[in-house]
């Protein structure tokens, strides 16, 4: 390993073993992280930079080498596996004008390449954020995509943009991860948290939960329009009848206490 470098690998611990010793699962020269289980508990998906960019890889605990699942022209940032394993949800930073025409990731990749070659370094900002903590706004938004996978962890078809119809980062920048989106137990629906950017993003905490079909048909529906404060971290009950999430009460107050909300999906009745 070269000096002054950090590297991440995946390790496995068998909780059934009497004196379980962790076993190193990945040894590549690249960074491996964000391991997420397939529903059979015998395979994982994870993010790795071993192809030169951050992509989803698939590994069986039974042995053998990891195989590459996604070959997108841009980096994958967050990852979740659907409860039945037929879909992955991934977040990707894209230029908003590049989407809406069949999840055109190539458009974002080409624009990044052109920008890297361009001698121009100036940038026009006509709304906040310019920078959020240590993260500069470079014009890209995080969009949530789903992509179908087969039993061998190979993608089927093009990714579908879940959040592209909204002016929002999903998950949120700069710290949001896969806790901000979830699949319904049958895998048919996706619920994610998003804050509409507009001109007010810098002082708004109005994240709402949106529900959308996991196959990309239809537009996201706001489930929490009645709460002008923060709604996030959605989770379905195993039978899919209830949705639980974290909510704040005071709009614009970032440090407000999060409380737990449970809503019955059929009746709309909620318990706090």
């Amino acid at each position, binding site marked *: 390993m070269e000096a002054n*470098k950090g590297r991440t690998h995946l*390790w*496995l611990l068998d909780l*059934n073993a009497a004196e379980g010793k962790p076993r190193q699962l990945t040894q590549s020269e690249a960074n491996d*992280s*964000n391991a997420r*289980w397939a529903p059979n508990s015998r395979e994982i998906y994870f993010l790795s930079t071993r192809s030169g960019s951050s992509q989803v890889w698939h590994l069986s605990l039974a042995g053998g080498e990891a195989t590459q699942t996604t070959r997108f022209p841009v980096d994958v940032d967050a990852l979740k596996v659907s409860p039945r394993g037929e879909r992955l949800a991934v977040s990707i930073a894209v230029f908003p004008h590049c989407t809406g025409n069949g999840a055109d990731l190539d458009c974002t990749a080409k624009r990044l390449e052109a920008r890297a070659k361009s001698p121009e370094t100036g940038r026009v900002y006509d709304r906040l954020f310019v920078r959020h903590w240590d993260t500069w706004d470079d014009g890209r938004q995080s969009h949530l995509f789903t992509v179908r996978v087969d039993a061998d962890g190979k993608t089927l078809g093009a990714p579908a943009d879940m959040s592209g119809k909204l002016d929002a980062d999903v998950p949120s920048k700069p710290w949001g991860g896969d806790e901000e989106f979830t699949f319904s137990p049958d895998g048919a629906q996706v619920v994610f948290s998003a804050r509409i950017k507009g001109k007010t993003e810098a002082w708004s905490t109005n994240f709402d939960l949106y529900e959308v079909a996991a196959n990309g048909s239809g537009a996201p529906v706001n489930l929490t329009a009645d709460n002008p404060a923060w709604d996030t971290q959605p989770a379905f009950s195993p039978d899919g009848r209830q949705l639980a999430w974290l909510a704040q009460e005071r709009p614009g107050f970032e440090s407000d206490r999060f409380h737990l909300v449970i809503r019955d999906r059929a009746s709309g009745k909620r318990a706090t």
Partner: protein
Amino acid sequence: MVKFLSGVVLVAGMLGGTAGAQEPRQPFSPDDLVRLNRLSDPQVSPDGRYVVYTLRETEHGG
């Protein structure tokens, strides 16, 4: 928070190890802090048998 607690556990383990061995004792240094392995992102398998997690190792040249 999980990352922080992992760090504390690792520090405790490291200090214990040093005290037990017959090596010259030295104060905990910034170098030691940088070299600490960082555990993060534990994920329990759906059947509850396994935990998979990320380990970050750092090679600090001097």
